[in-house]
């Protein structure tokens, strides 16, 4: 599903939502696993990302960002709110108690997914001291593997602006990361 109409419809058409969900559920779960260690939090946050996307979908414009980049931009904010809220407040605000939907097999799959993303979580944590915009760009590029152009689209920045943020962050993190940030993968159109 790549049409603007498809994404814009996920807030009102359950079938459009299902197509969108099936296309992106694995990517969202990996995105979350790169940021949290608890399988229960991962389940709740996966639900919250899709809820946030449902509510934001009416404003979706295909010329701004491709669906995946758009969804990652939303997911960033959902996970950031998770880290900044008290756990209790977050639990109270959750409208789908996703962790209650877990059985043993599904839990095992999420735990395995989280285990496989340990290195990415290390990079994610190391970005905490960066200014917000730099952090946002580096997160999506270095942690999630988006190109600079995709990250820029997800964040509402120009590609040039995103490039500046990335390289400033790389200089700032040169002495704190075990491995320097790689040259970003760029897509030009």
């Amino acid at each position, binding site marked *: 599903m790549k049409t603007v109409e498809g994404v814009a419809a996920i*807030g*009102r058409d*359950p079938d459009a*939502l*299902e197509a969108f*969900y*099936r*296309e992106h*559920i*694995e990517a969202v779960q990996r995105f979350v696993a790169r940021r949290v260690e608890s399988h229960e939090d991962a*389940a709740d946050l996966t*639900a919250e990302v*899709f*809820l*946030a*996307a*449902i*509510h*934001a979908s*009416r*404003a979706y414009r295909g*010329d*701004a960002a491709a669906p995946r980049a758009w969804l990652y*931009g*939303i997911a960033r*904010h*959902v996970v*950031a*709110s998770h880290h*900044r*809220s*008290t756990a*209790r*407040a*977050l639990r*109270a*605000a959750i*409208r*789908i108690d*996703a962790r209650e*939907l*877990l*059985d043993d*097999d*599904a*839990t095992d799959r*999420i735990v395995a997914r989280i285990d496989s993303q340990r290195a990415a979580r290390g990079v994610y944590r190391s970005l905490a001291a960066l*200014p*917000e915009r730099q952090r*946002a760009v580096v997160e999506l590029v270095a942690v999630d593997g988006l190109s600079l*152009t995709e990250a*820029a*689209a997800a*964040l*509402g*920045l*120009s*590609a*040039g*602006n995103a490039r500046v943020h990335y390289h400033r962050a790389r200089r700032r993190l040169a002495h704190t990361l075990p491995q320097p940030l790689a040259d970003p993968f760029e897509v030009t159109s």
Partner: protein
Amino acid sequence: MNAQLDSFETALLTRLREHVDQQPAVRPRFSRPRLLLGAAATVAAAAAMVVVVPGLGSTPAYSVQEGNSGTITVEVQRLEDAEGLEAELAKFGVKADITYLPDRQECAAGRYTPVDRTLSGMVVTMGSQLLRVTLPPGTVRDGETFVMAVSGEAIPPSSSEPSQDGIIDMGGFSFWTDFDVTAGPVQPCRVVPSTVG
């Protein structure tokens, strides 16, 4: 396309479909600024073309209503007159401690002790009414206090011109909120800078 969903993914899809089914039909209106916030407690500019509401004119800063079931719903349009909202909630029998903070500020943690019970049904959502608090009957019992601190920061658009990628940064609104119920005293908010962007 991930056609094979496991039990969790299938159950979550079912819940999400139900959620969409329950959404009221809304006709998009793009001619007028409006606040469009997602489900998260914190939503900022770029993610979803969030639009800044520059104040809603003469609309009241808040409203409090009680439904037939006894559920109290608070809607906050602007982060103004916290004392007025506290007084209004008192009329509904809810003692409240409301704090509004400007910009990227938070209350330091530990200024109250939450009650030791699950507060099922207490929900704070960011929606088209800016901030809505739902308190089911019995959420705040006699002698207890509903505590809520909120900070909101308008994020101005970085440019009104489309970038080379055709993106227009429309700005947005970022929230921090902490809310709970306590049976004990509530210390004054010690303001600290927000730790997360």
